């Protein structure tokens, strides 16, 4: 089974995707951006930060509310999406593509399979 390019989720609305070997791209879900409404600020981790699975990694503020963003997996930050700092509305417009938050280098691909599938995540949103 190949997990490349498959999007998996945390129930706290973050997604992760293995776009290249050993690198996980992370963002927030379509449902999350819809709940938050217009996003106006983002605080991203620094490149080199070590993030833990389900640990705080970023903050997103919409006009409505501030929300912590958790990292789906453990790993070191290798790239951040600096565009979001000036144009946070990208997250509203393209949460799964242009609105990614950061990329981490993960040690263990296997854990990725433990994250929620699209279907499982959708079920949690309906509850």
């Amino acid at each position, binding site marked *: 089974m190949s997990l490349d390019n498959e999007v998996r989720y945390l129930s706290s609305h973050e997604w992760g995707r293995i776009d290249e070997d050993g690198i996980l791209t992370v963002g927030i879900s379509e449902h999350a951006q819809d709940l938050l*409404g*217009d996003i*106006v*600020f983002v*605080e991203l981790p620094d490149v080199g930060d070590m993030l833990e699975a389900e640990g705080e990694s970023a903050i997103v*503020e919409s*006009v*409505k509310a*501030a929300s912590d963003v958790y990292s789906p997996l453990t790993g070191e930050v290798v790239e951040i999406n600096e565009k979001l700092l000036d144009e946070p509305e990208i997250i509203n417009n393209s949460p799964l593509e242009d609105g990614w938050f950061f990329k981490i280098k993960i040690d263990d691909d296997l854990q990725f399979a433990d994250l929620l599938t699209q279907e499982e995540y959708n079920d949690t949103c309906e509850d």
Partner: protein
Amino acid sequence: MVDFHGWDMPINYGSQIEEHHAVRQGCGIFDVSHMTILDFEGSESELFIRKLIANDVRKLSENYSGLYSAMLNDKGYVIDDLIAYRMDKGFRLVVNCATRGEDLRWISARAKEYDVNMLEREDLSMVAIQGPQSPNVLKNFPAPIDFLKEKKRQQGIFQDDIFAAKTGYTGELGFEVILPNEKAIDLWNIAISEGAKPIGLAARDTLRLEAGMNLYGFEMDETISPFECNMGWTVCWQDDQRDFFGKESLIKQKESNDLKELVGIITEEKAILRQGQKIHLEEENHARGVVTSGTYSPSLKKPIALARLPKSESTFCFAEIRGKRVKAKIGSPKFIKEGKLIFKEKV
């Protein structure tokens, strides 16, 4: 949609920031039918309203004109804020939906001693049309709303069951229309077809906050003096023979030195000021102020807030946001009027 005190109301129709700009730059339409409309008639209606509220309806020399006022309890704290209009046979008060129950209890109990009848107008809807283009969207509405163009702020008209006045909650040119429920949908559809954009609760809040307008339960409640929520100017002292509920307590409050004040604050930092955040003056360790309402200002593209602080010479303060201290400038509790910056920094 959310349940707003028993009314199904939209938070936003699409992007709340786009709705905000639509009102500042064009025209927005708000369904504010949740507001409670109370009509007072009877030979002593003027006597009663002059006692009931802290502003003085004697100032309303023309029918259908309105004024903003607080209704105070005996301690001189705010039970509600409202607009009082002079009508043909008495007065109309538009009070908040959230405080409806308490207002009705308070008013009914005190009206007993007067020859006055209070009627809650559940048969009426209320629609606000706000923004620089607002005079243009009702050209085809079969009512005399066009006449409003001749009127000044706070003045109104009443014809064919349709009441309209140049009031609002956004700081923009505009008017509020109170009309029979069955006519409201027509008005809504015509305004939309002429380019008005529907506006939800979220943008209503950013608009009123930029305009420095209070929201009951945030800037004031039954424990807050009008002097501490920038409503001192609405208390009318002109006629010293007039008594009103809370007057005696207000006179005592005026003499005390520990009244706080409502100010506007703006930060250049990327962290949103929100209700309940503590405010420190200068580098002090203990917080002595609080954010009453905060948001991201779509017009200024910066976080802004109304905050209640001790009176001081400070020109800046620090808001506690997620454990960090965020510096903010202190100034007037008003930011935007008719699309323009009116915030005055303290110097």
